[in-house]
């Protein structure tokens, strides 16, 4: 793949729901091995943006290209990691069966080949869960379940990893471990992480994409208190102080 052409390119995108504009004038280019944090207040349009990128929604206006094609045609090249807390804790399913779902592909019957099983096992191993394949998914800890979902995305062979609010409901230690994993994966994959918690725009990310109806892109170093309060207004209650931002201000332009 050409290193210079973006893996994801959004031009002049608008999306509205029930006559209310959710996203306006979005321009965004994501490059190979980028690490991007998508932040913004709840209701600001982050999830809508992700749903447009993975092709669950279609834009009202504008263009989205994933690997040069419409998102619906590039779905199999995107690894999507939903929130682990969305899953029914009573669902009896093994970790192995969750991960193999990443290999469902488009074969008619959906039976798993030896290759599929190998890919699932390799992904579990990479996430440090090799011995947990036959355990019940709901019996794992939150952090482990999250890694199972990352393994599922890896098994699918996705080249862009999109994580939806992975930092919600996990403790600081697990979070640190998550970023160790993502740093390792970032050596070969493009990573996009959605969060409403600006504190997570840590030094791991190369760029921060602020979404609040409009989209503004910053280098991580530009994430300052001024920007944060501009984004969140006075509703902001939670600010973490254990990450490092440059002190210089910035301007929206």
């Amino acid at each position, binding site marked *: 793949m050409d290193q210079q052409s973006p893996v994801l390119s959004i031009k002049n995108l608008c999306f509205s729901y029930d006559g209310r504009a959710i996203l306006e004038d979005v321009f965004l280019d994501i490059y190979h091995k980028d690490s991007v944090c998508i932040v913004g207040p709840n209701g600001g349009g982050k999830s809508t943006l992700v749903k447009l990128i993975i092709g669950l929604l279609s834009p009202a206006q504008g263009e989205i290209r994933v690997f040069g094609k419409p998102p619906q045609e590039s779905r199999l090249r995107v690894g999507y990691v939903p929130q682990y807390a969305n*899953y029914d804790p009573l669902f*009896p399913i093994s970790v192995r069966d969750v991960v193999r779902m990443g290999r469902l*592909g488009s074969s008619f019957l959906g039976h798993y080949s030896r290759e599929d099983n190998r890919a699932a096992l390799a992904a579990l191993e990479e996430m440090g869960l090799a011995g947990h394949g036959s355990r*019940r998914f709901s019996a794992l800890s939150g952090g482990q379940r999250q890694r199972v979902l990352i393994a599922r995305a890896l098994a699918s062979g996705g080249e862009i990893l999109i994580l939806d609010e992975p930092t919600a409901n996990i403790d600081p230690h697990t979070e640190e471990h998550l970023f160790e994993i993502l740093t390792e994966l970032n050596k070969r994959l493009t990573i996009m992480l959605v969060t409403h918690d600006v504190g997570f725009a840590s030094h791991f990310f190369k760029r921060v994409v602020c979404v609040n109806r409009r989209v503004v892109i910053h280098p991580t170093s530009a994430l300052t208190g001024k920007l944060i309060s501009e984004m969140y207004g006075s509703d902001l209650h939670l600010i973490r102080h254990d990450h490092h931002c440059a002190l210089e201000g910035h301007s929206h332009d």
Partner: protein
Amino acid sequence: MTEFMAALADPHLPFLRYAFMAGILASISFGIIGTLVVVRRISSIAGAIAHCVLGGIGAGLYLEQVVGIGWASPVQGAIVVALGAAVALTLIKHFGSQREDTVIGALWAVGMAVGLLFMARTPGYTDPMSYLFGNILLLSKSDVYLVLLLDLLVVSVVGLFYNKLLALCFDEEYAFLRGVPTGWYYFVLLCLTALTVVLLIRVVGVVMVIALLTLPAAIAGNVASGIKQMMFLAVLICMAFITVGLAASYRLDLPSGPVIIVLSGIVYLLVLGILQLFPIRSAQ
């Protein structure tokens, strides 16, 4: 129990034998589809299909006896209406702008009302109670064959598309992103649910059939480690409920449908109680 065994072999009680055979065979579909209904959380949808099937039963009776269409029958009416309800519910989920639960409620009641109106206009003594709460006296040999046929269908469809149905139930959005046409699989699941519900309407009736569909699966889900195991256990539990329920109803001279359902409910509560007192580790 020995008395019940003797009754099963009694040539003068064919309906009991048919009820037993239909029940045991239908348990296979009930355990498999019941499991999917429970984990996919569409019990209320299955309930709506079961209830509005009465409309089809009424129409079948009316067409058979009043209009005089020889090949029409309550079972055919039930199957047509059940599949029609599955189509309607799939369309509403994917294209409808109405609240799904409102539509479920409407389908539920209107189907029953239509059925009762057809029965009111069908001469002779058509007792709605038989269809509402089950009546094993209505069973015949052809019902057993019908159950067998539908078992084959359920087992082969679920067996062939197991991974896709599992993905649909666990994480529909993700399955869709992996290229699974989830809308179609949801439709297939509702159709199989509809056909399964029709199977045992003569034994337990339209009102109670939902309990026999969901309770064995719910009990199995508490102890099973995976969906396959849950299906297998649900089949066995369903068979046990039907066997013991029929035997008890024969022994006590009570209607078999309610006995089977009360038995299922009691066992379900007992299992929940036992699990509260002695929680099992489901971590394996």
